[in-house]
């Protein structure tokens, strides 16, 4: 048997909705197997079944030829299957080292925990990913990208034969992705089987050997990637050719929708200014963690800069603004802010799609007024964003990652904001949906709105935006027209600053 894993005829339904129908998948040693498909196609569900999180309704799993079934993630790990889950699942109140070893802590003398060993091994695992984090740092203190790395380190450091990486790069930038890729290649050299889920085409072609495409819970096919080109892969996923991922750029430059001047993020950083005009999509580019997010969050009070002035609709606001009222103040000025971390900051996971969509609409009204129903708004938003859910009353927590992202975006598009601040507009969103979101944002701009966003995907910034600010060292080091920008040019601008 040359297969490490064979999944045969797997079906799974949640309540009434079928997530997987008779899906088969084989994993061979020394290959990186891409799993592709639109949001909600069933990729995560399939992998959760392999990882022991869910149990299949029917179908079998063979591990090196022998039928197995995993009652829980622990059992799967014991059988040599290690998983990096899509939704971040680290415990915020535990240190990196503790998270890495949770459930399998080394025991020292007298039954105590061998903390020194945990620390050393964690340090090693992090170092192999090029990280110099202190293993004793609490996870709650880490940025999302750092958490993602810890999660990856946790997953790939295990003593396993099969590694499942479910959108490991959603929160990573290009440089980080390269570090990860090196690692994955090393695992491949060592004869491991890797399942790699991502919505970023370039990564798939850079690292994977074979691709299996799922659509609506069914397997479309499995092909070697050497036979494929991006266009044909997309066609396989979407069921049609995708003419163009990015919509046409806007033309005119309107009046300033937002101008920020003298924004000094930290005591020792250089103040900088930027503007966003009506009809324009502007992006913050640059290496991860150089201040893009701080600048954006400063506008809504979620980061306290040293100083700065915001002009908007003829009003001038001095920064910093209070953390508590910042978001409301921003919304009162006709703005919207879409947070990056949809699980922890964005969505009401236990609430319905409808409730999530209208949350910001309610928030704009006085507390003691009668609440409106907004049935039409919900229907229209779900249609406009093409949200795949059984209906407005489906719980958001049960949607696939991409659909959750759409619901989140929908909440802010449903308000009559004319200025959107977006952190990661397409995190964990499939190509088809990406194209839809790009189109929606462009339409929004064409109708006189303005968008300011940041993204870890440079390609996205270049393709979607009109104008880019390259941020480095907590200040804007360069401004460029997106049409003329290149990945190389951006990196160059950032690093030569």
């Amino acid at each position, binding site marked *: 048997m040359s297969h490490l894993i064979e999944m045969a005829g797997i079906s799974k339904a949640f309540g009434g909705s079928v997530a997987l129908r008779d899906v088969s998948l084989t994993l061979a040693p020394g290959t990186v197997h891409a799993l592709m498909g639109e949001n909600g196609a069933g990729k995560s569900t399939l992998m959760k079944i392999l990882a022991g999180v869910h149990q299949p309704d029917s179908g079998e799993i063979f591990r090196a030829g022998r039928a197995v079934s995993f009652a829980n993630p622990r059992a799967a790990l014991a059988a040599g299957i290690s998983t990096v889950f899509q939704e971040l699942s680290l*415990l915020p109140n*535990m240190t990196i080292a503790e998270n890495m070893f949770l459930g399998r*802590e080394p*025991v020292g003398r007298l039954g105590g*925990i061998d903390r020194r060993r945990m620390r050393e091994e964690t340090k090693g695992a992090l170092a192999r990913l090029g990280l110099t984090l202190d293993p004793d*740092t609490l996870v709650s*203190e880490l940025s999302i990208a750092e958490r993602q790395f810890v999660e990856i380190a946790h997953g790939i450091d295990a003593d396993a034969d099969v590694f499942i990486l479910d959108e490991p790069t959603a929160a990573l930038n290009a440089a980080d992705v390269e570090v990860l890729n090196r690692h994955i290649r090393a695992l491949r050299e060592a004869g491991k089987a890797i399942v790699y889920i991502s919505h970023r085409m370039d990564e798939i072609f850079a690292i994977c050997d074979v691709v299996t495409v799922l659509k609506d819970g069914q397997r479309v096919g499995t092909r070697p990637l050497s036979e494929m080109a991006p266009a044909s892969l997309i066609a396989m996923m979407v069921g049609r050719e995708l003419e163009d991922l990015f919509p046409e750029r806007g033309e005119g430059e309107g009046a300033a929708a937002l101008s920020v001047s003298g924004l000094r993020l930290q005591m020792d950083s250089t103040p900088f200014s930027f503007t966003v005009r009506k009809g324009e999509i502007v992006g913050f580019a640059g290496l991860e963690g150089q201040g893009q997010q701080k600048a954006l969050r400063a506008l809504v009070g979620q980061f306290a800069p040293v100083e700065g002035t915001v002009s908007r609709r003829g009003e001038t606001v001095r920064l910093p603004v209070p953390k508590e009222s910042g978001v409301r103040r921003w919304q009162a000025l006709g703005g919207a802010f879409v947070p990056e971390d949809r699980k922890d900051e964005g969505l009401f996971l236990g609430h319905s799609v409808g409730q999530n969509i209208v949350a910001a609409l309610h928030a704009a009204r006085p507390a003691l007024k009668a609440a409106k129903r907004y049935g039409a708004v919900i229907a229209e938003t779900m249609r406009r964003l093409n949200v795949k859910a059984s209906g407005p009353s489906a719980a958001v927590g049960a949607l696939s990652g991409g659909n959750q992202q759409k619901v989140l975006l929908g909440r802010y598009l449903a308000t009559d904001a004319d200025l959107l601040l977006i952190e990661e507009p397409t995190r964990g969103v499939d190509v088809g949906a990406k194209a839809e979101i790009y189109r929606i944002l462009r339409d929004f701009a064409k109708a006189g709105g303005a968008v300011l966003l940041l993204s870890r995907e440079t390609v996205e910034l270049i393709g979607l935006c009109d104008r880019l600010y390259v941020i480095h060292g907590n200040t804007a080091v360069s401004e460029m027209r997106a049409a003329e920008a290149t990945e190389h040019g951006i990196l160059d601008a950032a690093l030569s600053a």
Partner: protein
Amino acid sequence: MNFSSSTFGKLLTGRGSRQGLWLLPFAIALAMALWLAVTTSQFGQWSNLANLVAQGMPLLITAVGQMFVVLVGGLDLSIGSVVSFTTAILALDLPGYVTIPGVFLFAGLIGATNGYCITRLNVHPIVATLSMQYVVLGITRVLRPVSGGTVPEGVRWLVEGSLFGLPLPILWGIATLLVAWKLLYGSRYGLHLFAIGGGVAACSDDAARNFGIPASRNILLAYVICSLFAALAGVFLAGRIVSGDPNVGLLMELDAITAVAIGGTQLSGGVGSLHGTVIGVVVLALLSNGMNLLNVTPFVQTAVKGILLMAVVALQSRKKIGL
């Protein structure tokens, strides 16, 4: 240098650690002790300090136990009844080698029932343990309608005697803290409690389970531990009042929770420390002893206690809103 990210700032605000905000209450306890030592002549006397240890011991033991369930985001309101129940059993006309193992057995069962209802039957901790409080109190009232009986002489010695010149209550305290320390910090179990609590506080109850930690079993065990500590406190109290009493544990659960919270342990779970709990107990004990020594009239003692409590907790702001 940003204040809140400096080492001292972190210690003061409790950020970047899961020990909770214990430094301020520590400073308050210290200030109270110093003030009492300066303003009253009796405070520093050996006999008063020995009293203080003995007076604070039941609270210390119950608070330490309570901390285990608070760390996993729970609460145990039944411990006051368990304490009363323990004294009632000890005051039965039975030899100590029967009653003492007996009370721990019963307490373990009570804790296990609490834990079972909470983890397997999905009952809210407040409801489960409040029901248990009623049930155990009822049984205690049947066993011993009014206070009375005598506890075995040995139990009294355990509380009032001394060993190698050390009053035994001090040894009780040391033993309690050692056991708790070992459980919390010297074992995988303790680490898992923090992990489970962290998941509960982050509203993802399954987080710890995904790491392969048997969350239900660990939580159940936390309630057993809490109950066992309550029984231990009951044995201590029985030795102190030398009789059984159906009401002796009344409202002890609230004091224990208060002490735990003053020490910086967050009631939502996952954040807290053993030394914080000790500090919380010390603050409460000093408050009561100090007011007696300062001759504060009983008509204002309650108010002073409340205001001081309020001051201590008001200083302990956290990131989270709620419980």
